[in-house]
Structures are given as C-alpha cells and as structure tokens.
C-alpha cells in the first residue's frame, strides 16, 4: 500500500518540475541561512560560516541531485528523455523513418493478422466456458467411441466432472414452414452440463429424456430460432417435424453457442438397449470436462487403463483398442488447418526477420552519418551503455510506431479474409467466426514490436558505440568510409535477407502453382454446367433398399426432364471436395487377407449409370453400368485405373471378383466389369485414391448427391430442382443446391487463401529485400564518391568504375543464392507433403523464381552503381 502510494507520488513528481525545483531551491536556501546564522552566532566569520554550512550539507548540487532522484523515477525519466530525443531524431530524417516504419508496419502487421487467425482456429475456435478444461475422448487417433465403451468410460472415469456423447447428423425439418435441411446433433442428456452451458430460453434436456420414447423434444440454436420462428419466445412448446417425427421445442441456445460445428438444433441421443451394448461400431463423439485438479495426463492414463481392461474382457471387439484424451480444441480443428496455420506462422515469422534485418541495415547506415553526434555525446560524458540504450530506445520507438501502423494493416488483412469468405464455409470452419483483433493480439503485437525493435537495433547500437570518441570526431567532418566490421555486418544482413526472401518466394510460388493446378484440374469436369444437390433419406421412412431406389429413380427422372437439363445422375462424392470420402476395405477372390488391416482398401462410390458421362469420367476398359444392372442381376463394380494397377499389375482387372468389407464380413462378390480414369475426389489426399464404383440399383444409399448437367447456367435450375425433389417427398428436401464450380470453389477456398496470403508475403519479402540491397549499395556508392572521383580523374574507365561499384552487390547476391537455393529446395521438400502439387523437383519454379529475384537484386545494385560512373571528378574532389 505504502509503496504504491510512494510510486504514485513519484510519478506525480515527473510533472510540474519547475515549481518543484523552485521549492527545493527555497528549502535549501532556508536551511543554509539558518545554519549560517547559527554558525555566525558561534563566532565564525561570514565566509567560514557559509563554508562550514555547505560542508555539513554535503554539497548543494549533490543534495539536490539526490533529492531529485527520490522525487521522480530516474529510470523512467531517462527513458522519457530518450524517447523525446528519439522522436526528434526520427523527425529529422523522414526518409529513413518512413522506410523503416513502412517495413516494420508490414512485418508486424502480417504477424498480428496471422496470430489472430491462429488464435481463432487453434486456441479458441469454440465459445464455451473454460474451454481448456474440455477434452474429447477418442478411439485411436481421432475416431469416435463405440457406445458400450462410452458407457464404461462414463461409469469408471474418475478424472472427469461429466462425460457426454453426441452424434452429428443432418436432419430434414418440416412442419408449418418450408421444408429445409438443418445441421442437427443428437446429444446425451448431460451434454450441456458437460460443456458448461445452458439455454437462454427454456431448459436443457433432463436425465431420462435421452431414452427412447421420451426423446421427442429439441433445443433450437439462436440462428434457427431467428430464421424459423422470427426470434419469438412463443416458439417454446411449438412442434417441429424432424425426419417425419414431431418434436417439441423446449429451449433456445445463446447466439454464441455452436457446438458441434455447425449446429442448428439439438435433440436427445436416445439409444436403444441394443445400440447401447454395441462395441463394434465407433459411432459416438465423446466430450468431457476435466475435474478440478485433474490433469490431461491423469485422464489419459485412466483411459489407457480402461482400454487395456476392455481389451481383456472383450477381445473380439476391443482387442488393441486404445483411447486417447485430447483437448477439445484439437479435436474440432480441421484436418489440415493446423498444418496450414503453422505454415503461415512460419512464413510471417520469416517476413518479420527480413523486415528487422532491413531496419537494422537502415540503422547501420544512419549510425554512420550520426558518428559525430555520438562522438560528441560520448565526449560530454555519456558512457557506452547510455549510448546503446539511447539507440535501442530509438529502435524500439520506431518499432512501436510501426506496430501502430501494423495494427491497421492487420485489421485490413483480417477484413479481407473474413469479407471474401463464402458464408457456407464460415459456418463449417471451426473458429472462423471468432476471427478478430482482441487483447491477446494486441499484447502479441506489442511483444513483437519490442522484440523487433531490439533485434533491429542491437547490432547497429553496439557497432556504432564501439568507436572511440576521438576517432568519430576526427573522421566526422570528412567523407571517410565506414569501419570494416560494420560494413561486413551490414553485408551479412543483406545476404541473409536475400537468402530468406528466396526461400519464402519459392515456397509461395510452389503453393500458388499447386493451387492453380488443383483448380485447373476441375476444368476437366466442366463444373460450370453441373448443378449438384444433396438428399438424405431418413432410415425410419426408407428402411428398405427398394424404397430408396424408387425415390432415386423418380428423382433422376424428374431432374433430367427439367428444361435446360441434359442428363441427371446420382453419386456419392463430387471431384475436388474436402468432406472426406467413403473409405473402406475390400477382399479379392482367391487372395484371402490374414486380417482386416492387411486387406486392400479403396474409396467407395455408389453411382447411377449416367454418372461417368455426366462427370466426364472416361471409361478405359470394359463397360459402364447400364439399366440392365439390376437388383436381381449379377453384382458388378467399376474400379479406377489406380486400383486396377495396384492390385492387378500387368494383367487385366476385368472379370475378377471383389467383396466389400473385411475378411470376416459376408456379402456378395462383385464382378469387375469396367475400369475408369482416376478422379481426385478429396483434394486433401493430394493424389487420386483407388476407387470402387457400385451401381445404385445394387447398393442404394440413404445419403446421396444428385447432379444435373445443363446446357446453360446451372444456377437457373436451382429452384426447379428443389421443387422437383419436394414434389416426390416433401419431408426429404434437397440441400446444398449449388453449381458444381461453386461447390469446388468452396471446398478449396482455404487453400486459395493460403496461396494468396503466401503470395502477398512473398511480394512483401521481395520488396523489402530489394529495398535492403538498394539501400546498402546506394550508401556504399555515396560513401566512395570521392574515391571514384579520384579514380576517374586518374583515368579509370567508366566500365572499371561500374564494376568496382557493383562488385559488392554481385558478391552479396552470389553468396545469398548459394545459401538460399539449397534452403529453398530443402523447405520445398518439407512442403511437398503439405501442399497439393508441390514437388521439390519443380524445375519451372526453381528456375523462374530465382531468376526474377536475381534480376530484381541486380537492378537494385545497378542503379546506384550507375550513379557512381556519372561522378564528376571536380565535384567529388571539391566535396572533400
């Protein structure tokens, strides 16, 4: 308390100094007078009395100085003084200040922007209280849990406050309004308690309401409440039909709550006794809140033990079963979001380093023109530490000013990111709606500014304060060149800058090229003439395959007869999507696999006969499916070229028989009747996967995509297609109705963003590096003006001078490329696993990018060198 009070008083002491000084002087004055008077009284002479009083006081100025130190905060005062002085110095050289400021603003700004993105995606993608105490329990790496395993964990888990389960599924909403498709989640009764949230209106589910027969109620998301009920509180108690069954609204969630991502409504997870006992199918997502004091490690140890116990008791299903406890944040993040975000963080870190190196160089340059100033300060009694501190303060001040501009730039970057993203993607992307510049980002920016200020300032400060004052004063007035050490250091900085820029620009070029290749490959399917729509037939209403098949037949007939439609087809997945594919094992007749894990695998697709032609997937051998492939005829399959080559190399796959599932599964043997070209269905796989196609007549799925090839703009058919489906079954509305090119754009937009961002970063780095090399070259030439003048006067050829002046720049670029190229190749190798189409041996990129960079560097070196040969010897010599 007292300390704080004193601190406040001392802070106040920094102000109204004049008055305080006068008061101090008056107090000292009165002290001395009283003392002198006393001394006089003891019989001293006037001079002696004054002298003794002064001695006893211990020196007037010294006392005053001690008093001042106590009055204010000396450290802070020097700092303020340095800042004031720094501001004046920065204002005096606006060229230097603007260049450095701009460089730092860009460098810090992109860091702030990417930090905000990373924070939104990786740290707080969900608006849930005490998010860091929430975990997901998974089977293996990231699979859901089997229901029976979940219930065992629930009864035995000691580290958890609550353990809850959910299952996300799309639901068809019907009732008073137009039928629509909603993101639904079936959740256990304790789900909201585990997450630590409660509805803003109405109530959550109660224990026992997640039992079959008691579960006909639902909780609305704020979004759905607004959309369907106009945010009317009277929505409570209303009935909504979900997949044909009536549910009563009992609550509305807060606007911020969206878990799982995305969710429109929650219903109870009512499992039948048989479903509860299931240990085979991993079907439940499990979330839990850690008890106070329980660590993730303890929870993990507990679940590992449970896994071992279950494996002993139920070897058939739970053998080798391993549970993993991971932070919920990690569980919800997109499969490649983390990798790409880290890539971006690394890239902006590099940009910052380059920016710092550049500013350091600028300061080196400026420091040499400030030599006489520093020398005078030193001669007047400033020690080296004081000089270094002064220069560092200036550098940090510069960085903070840059950070302010950087924040604006970051805000602009984020605005670009958010405003151009399709709303559909924003909903599916956990954390995308949480992007903003918050206090964390602000703190981060300040920290980055401080670090970059020091990084950029420390070497120039040390180097320029090293010289002796006498030297500085002697050289000050003359145009002598900089010390050798400083020049070397500066060259090293520029070299590093160019080398780093090379690495980053090559990486950016690879990424952009990969993205262009990816989007370019979509052209093969001419997606701008395809309309896609999804349907999902509830099993309750369509329990039998024949019923589903009948629906699809009618739907395809209706869609293909729409005006403007050329053909219609059903399929499981469109090319270049990123929702994952239906991946599974299969068996080959005559080649029994020892167990599931050694079985061959493929992506499974169910298609109608028209699909290959509609999607322009070429048939390479055999035949396509026809209308003669029926439920009752021989079961058949098409395989992709990749699958055929992998499992029947050197022979034909046609005529062979395969069966879907593991070695223990039963099912019909399918005869391979045709081989198709490869298609990259999920672009995150980077290369096409082996694929098995089955005819929809023999395996009609509950969920399917439908496509229409149109002669004109597919968007114009959207409405007609919707009502066509609604006419067949009003309770199974079509969803995600959009042209295929839009769907592909939405699935690849994240990659496009990364590419664009990397491109921008690459350009920034390139620009900064070019400015850096130009600055050094221009300065070197300027410094040697009189030397060149002398040489010209002595008869040196212009060519010789040009060579002399640019030699240094050439040397720098040569060294930079010698270091940068191997580093670029190495980092490209690293990136190859991450970036679609990025191959470390991409000669085009590795030839073109460095050439451009080299040309830019050459120009930056040449322009100042040309100035050197124009030097007029008379002027140059007079200058001295």
């Amino acid at each position, binding site marked *: 308390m*007292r*300390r704080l*009070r*004193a601190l406040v*008083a*001392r802070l106040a002491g920094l102000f109204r100094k004049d008055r305080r000084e006068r*008061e101090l002087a*008056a*107090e*000292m004055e*009165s*002290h001395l*007078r*009283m*003392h002198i*008077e*006393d001394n006089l009284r003891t019989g001293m002479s006037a001079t002696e009395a004054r002298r003794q009083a002064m001695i*006893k*006081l*211990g*020196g007037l100025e*010294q*006392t005053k100085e*001690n*008093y001042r*130190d*106590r*009055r204010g905060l000396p450290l802070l005062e020097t700092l303020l003084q340095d800042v004031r002085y720094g501001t004046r110095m920065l204002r005096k050289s606006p060229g230097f200040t603007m260049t450095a400021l701009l460089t730092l603003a860009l460098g810090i700004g992109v860091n702030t922007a990417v930090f905000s993105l990373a924070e939104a995606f990786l740290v707080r993608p969900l608006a849930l209280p005490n998010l860091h105490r929430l975990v997901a329990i998974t089977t293996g790496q990231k699979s859901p849990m089997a229901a029976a395993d979940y219930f065992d964990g629930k009864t035995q888990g000691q580290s958890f406050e609550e353990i809850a389960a959910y299952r996300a599924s799309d639901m068809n909403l019907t009732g008073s309004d137009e039928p629509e498709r909603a993101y639904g989640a079936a959740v256990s009764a304790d789900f909201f308690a585990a997450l630590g949230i409660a509805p803003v209106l109405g109530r959550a589910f109660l224990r026992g309401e997640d039992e079959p027969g008691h579960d006909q109620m639902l909780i609305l998301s704020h979004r759905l409440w607004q959309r369907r009920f106009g945010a009317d509180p009277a929505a409570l108690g209303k009935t909504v039909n979900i997949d044909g069954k009536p549910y009563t609204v009992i609550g509305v969630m807060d606007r911020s709550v969206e878990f799982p991502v995305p969710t429109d409504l929650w219903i109870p997870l009512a499992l039948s006794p048989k479903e509860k006992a299931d240990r085979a199918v991993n079907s439940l997502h499990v979330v839990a809140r850690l008890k106070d004091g329980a660590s993730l490690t303890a929870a993990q140890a507990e679940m590992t033990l449970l896994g071992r116990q279950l494996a002993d008791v139920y070897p058939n299903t739970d053998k080798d079963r391993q549970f993993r406890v991971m932070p919920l944040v990690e569980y919800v993040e997109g499969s490649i979001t983390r990798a790409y975000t880290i890539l971006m963080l690394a890239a902006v870190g590099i940009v910052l380093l380059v920016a710092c190196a550049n500013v350091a160089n600028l300061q080196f340059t400026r420091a040499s023109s400030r030599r006489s100033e520093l020398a005078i300060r030193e001669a007047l009694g400033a020690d080296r530490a004081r000089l270094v501190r002064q220069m560092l303060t200036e550098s940090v001040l510069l960085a903070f000013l840059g950070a302010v501009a950087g924040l604006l730039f970051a805000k602009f970057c984020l605005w670009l990111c958010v405003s151009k993203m399709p709303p559909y993607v924003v909903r599916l992307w956990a954390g995308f709606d949480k992007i903003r510049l918050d206090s964390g980002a602000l703190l981060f920016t300040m920290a980055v500014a401080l670090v970059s200020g020091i990084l950029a300032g420390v070497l120039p400060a040390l180097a320029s304060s090293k010289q002796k004052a006498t030297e500085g004063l002697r050289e000050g007035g003359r145009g002598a060149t900089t010390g050798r050490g400083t020049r070397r250091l500066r060259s090293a900085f520029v070299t590093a800058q160019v080398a780093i820029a090379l690495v980053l620009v090559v990486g950016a070029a690879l990424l952009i090229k990969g993205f262009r290749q990816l989007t370019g490959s979509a052209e093969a399917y001419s997606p701008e003439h395809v309309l896609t729509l999804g349907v999902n037939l509830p099993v309750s209403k369509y329990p039998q395959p024949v019923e589903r098949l009948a629906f699809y037949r009618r739907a395809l007939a209706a869609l293909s007869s729409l005006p403007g439609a050329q053909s219609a087809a059903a399929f499981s997945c469109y090319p270049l999507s990123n929702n994952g594919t239906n991946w599974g094992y299969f068996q080959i007749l005559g080649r029994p696999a020892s167990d599931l894990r050694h079985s061959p695998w493929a992506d499974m697709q169910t298609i109608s006969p028209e699909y290959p032609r509609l999607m322009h997937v070429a048939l390479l051998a055999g035949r396509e499916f026809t209308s003669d492939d029926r439920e009752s005829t021989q079961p058949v399959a098409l395989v992709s070229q990749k699958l055929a080559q992998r499992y029947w190399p050197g022979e034909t796959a046609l005529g062979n028989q395969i069966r879907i599932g593991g070695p223990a599964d039963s099912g019909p043997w399918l005869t391979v009747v045709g081989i198709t070209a490869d298609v990259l269905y999920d672009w995150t796989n980077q290369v096409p996967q082996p694929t098995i196609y089955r005819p929809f007549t023999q395996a009609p799925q509950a969920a399917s995509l439908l496509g229409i090839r149109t002669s004109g703009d597919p968007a114009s058919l959207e409405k007609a297609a919707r009502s066509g489906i609604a006419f067949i079954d009003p309770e199974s509305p079509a969803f995600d109705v959009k042209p295929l090119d839009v769907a592909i754009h939405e699935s690849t937009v994240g990659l496009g963003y990364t590419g664009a961002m990397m491109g921008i970063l690459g350009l920034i780095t390139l620009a900064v590096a070019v400015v850096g090399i130009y600055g050094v070259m221009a300065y070197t030439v300027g410094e040697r003006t009189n030397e060149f003048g002398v040489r010209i006067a002595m008869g040196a050829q212009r060519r010789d001078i040009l060579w002399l002046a640019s030699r240094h720049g050439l040397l720098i670029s040569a060294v930079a490329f010698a270091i940068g190229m191997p580093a670029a190749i190495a980092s490209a190798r690293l990136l190859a696993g991450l970036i679609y189409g990025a191959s470390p041996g991409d000669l085009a990129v590795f030839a073109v990018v460095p050439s451009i960079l080299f040309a830019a560097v050459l120009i930056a070196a040449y322009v100042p060198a040309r100035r050197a040969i124009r030097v007029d010897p008379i002027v140059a010599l007079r200058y001295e």
Partner: protein
Amino acid sequence: MGDKADVWQGTLALMVLKTLQALGPLHGYGIARRIEQTSGDLLAVNYGTLYPALLKLEQEGYISSEWGTSDNNRKAKYYKLTRAGRKQLEKEARQWEQTTEILARFLAPGKEST
C-alpha cells in the same frame, strides 16, 4: 555500500519520526540539528542526506509538509507527523526495541557458552 545506506535510511526515518513526535512541526535544519544533538555527536553525517529521507516519508504519507515562518522570522518548510506516521513510529519503535533486545542478549558476555 548499499547495505549501510539502507540501515542508515531505515534508522534515519525512525529518528525523524521520533523527533517530530517529540518536538512537533519542525523544519529540515531543526530536525538535522536535533538528531545530531541527541546522538551526542556520535553520528556525524551530512545534513543533505536528510532531505531525500524526508521526501520519501512524505511520499509514503507518514509526514506532511507546509511552508511556515521560523522563530527568527524566516520562511521555512515545516514537517509534521500524520496519523499514519504516528502508527508507523509506534510499530517501528517496537520492532527496533525488539531487535536491540535480541542483539543485546546475543552480545551479553558468555552466559550460554557452556
């Protein structure tokens, strides 16, 4: 060096407080003389060190100051004890007595050295 100054600063503050308690409002010179006299000239320090100590006590709120007129009609800055200062004086005096008592026991000739 620093340690000595600290000890001095600490005791000096106590002496200042005690002086102000005994004599009432007083100016810096008066406090300095009084401390010197009381210590029986054993303490010979610069009066100058007193002023930062006074400032510190004032910043901490133990004393307050105000300009007044001295006996022989001179303007001087007078310091006086605040309520917090009175309390602080009691506390510090008690602590100091305790400390000296303990030290005295230690230094008392060899009772416990057996």
